[in-house]
């Protein structure tokens, strides 16, 4: 059995600057895999390439058995790869309900969509209370909930979350992480990019440490959590 997502020797450049320098990793169905690393390590670039917003210079990506090279971003969603982008990027002047409906843009099953919107409201009750409100009026944490809820609306086989805890208060961060744990327990496959390495590794089945465009260390979440170099570099220990 092959993995749901397989990335092989992926390289991505912005003009002459190579941001991702030949990385390989895979995500099995049902797993939570995390990429950790400092700013500029190439984590966001990797996710944006997987979802088709950036074109790789070389390397292979296969998702659900199909190659993704040359597939435009709007068709990648249809294959079951959803991306909740860094900085949340909700549609600020549309309502919460409209944002969620856009997450289901390619779906035709009206009843199923309604059901999933209700599920998003159950997962994040605050979104249900404010469904008619413009999304731009939500707090940062609430916007993050909306971005995650919206990504789930496409019924993805793989959910990619880019820095879901960025800029959030510790309480909100805990809430978001608890939600990711809940999604994991429901069997959602997740590729998680996080700067909060502690939280991400505690959740992850598999983790990869990125530094300036390369994966420098890989292991299970627990292994990396107890790795001395990881503890020094990313968990703030001396």
């Amino acid at each position: 059995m092959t993995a749901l997502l397989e990335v092989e020797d992926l390289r991505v450049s912005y003009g002459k600057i190579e941001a991702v320098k030949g990385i390989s990793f895979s995500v099995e169905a049902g797993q939570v895999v995390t990429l950790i690393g400092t700013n500029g390590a190439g984590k966001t670039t990797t996710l944006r390439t997987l979802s088709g917003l950036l074109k790789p210079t070389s390397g292979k990506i296969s998702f659900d058995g199909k190659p993704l090279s040359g597939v435009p971003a709007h068709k990648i969603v249809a294959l079951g790869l959803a991306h909740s982008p860094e900085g949340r990027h909700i549609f600020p002047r549309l309502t919460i309900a409209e944002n969620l409906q856009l997450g289901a843009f390619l779906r035709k099953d009206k009843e199923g969509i309604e059901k999933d919107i209700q599920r998003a409201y159950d997962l994040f009750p605050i979104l249900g209370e404010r469904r008619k409100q413009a999304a731009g009026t939500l707090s940062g944490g609430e916007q993050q909930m909306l971005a995650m809820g919206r990504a789930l609306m496409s019924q993805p086989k793989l959910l990619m979350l880019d820095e879901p805890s960025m800029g959030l208060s510790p309480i909100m961060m805990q809430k978001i992480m608890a939600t990711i744990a809940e999604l994991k327990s429901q069997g959602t496959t997740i590729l998680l990019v996080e700067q909060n390495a502690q939280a991400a590794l505690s959740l992850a089945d598999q983790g990869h440490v990125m530094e300036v465009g390369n994966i420098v260390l890989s292991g299970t979440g627990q292994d990396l959590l107890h790795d001395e170099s990881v503890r020094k570099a990313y968990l703030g220990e001396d």
Partner: protein
Amino acid sequence: MNTLPQQLANGLLLGSMYGLIAIGYTMVYGIVQLINFAHGEIFMTGAFGALTVYFYILPDGTSMAIAVPLMLIGGALVAILIAVGAERFAYRPLRGAPRLAPLITAIGLSLALQEVVRNFYPGADRARAFPGLDATHDIGSITIKDADIFLILAAVVCMAALAIFVRRSRTGRAMQATAQDPDTAQLMGIDTNRIIVIAFAIGGFFAAVAAVAYGLKYGNVDYRMGFLMGLKAFTAAVLGGIGNIYGAMLGGVVLGIAETLASAYIDEIPGMNQLGGQSWANVWAFCLLILVLLFRPQGLLGERVADRA
């Protein structure tokens, strides 16, 4: 004849025409942040498309009740084709290029379209007669022509249809999403290239409606008609808040009324008796633009700039 109600009606009519054209500027700007300076010429080609249907396709003596809808279709086909063609072959290859490149392309395209029509359309180098709808009606103290009724009805129907389309339809929703955040719109599965084409096509259609109204009202068209009308409509779009479709219509009406009232009454202000009349209308229109840019740069209905992500 030149009572205040009449002047207001004249202004409203002129403004509706500006507003219809302004939709094209504002929709394209809202989605790709491009000022399509060739849009005035798209309006002009719409007029010639309609003229072609009337003079070269329909048999002589066709009743206007049949001719006008067919002229609308012909004008719209030409204007949409040129608008969509411009997007596909002139602007799309420059997406991601510095802002100045598509702007200069737009100006070049505008000149090219003028010259093509001037050189190749029979008799287009000077004013060409366009069938008018000149029967007049008196409503209280106001006199309006059939062409005016066509214009106001067309503007109301088009605007209402557009508002419903943008708010209620799936494609309209996708359009709003693309305007607010194009990358994220793609992540939702929206084909943003298709949305951009639709924005250009709607702009072309609205310009063609305005062009037919223009021909019916003024009775002639020429290859330069798009220049000033385009500039005024662009002013209307900025006045209303560029990127906002309601702003475009409101900006058009405000501009049309302000311009008409200024040219009718400003010479009654002591010391300004030399500054009235039609010849000063453009001056007052652009003065209004300057004032808005100074005191409300986001336009009448524009979002505060800080709200834009």
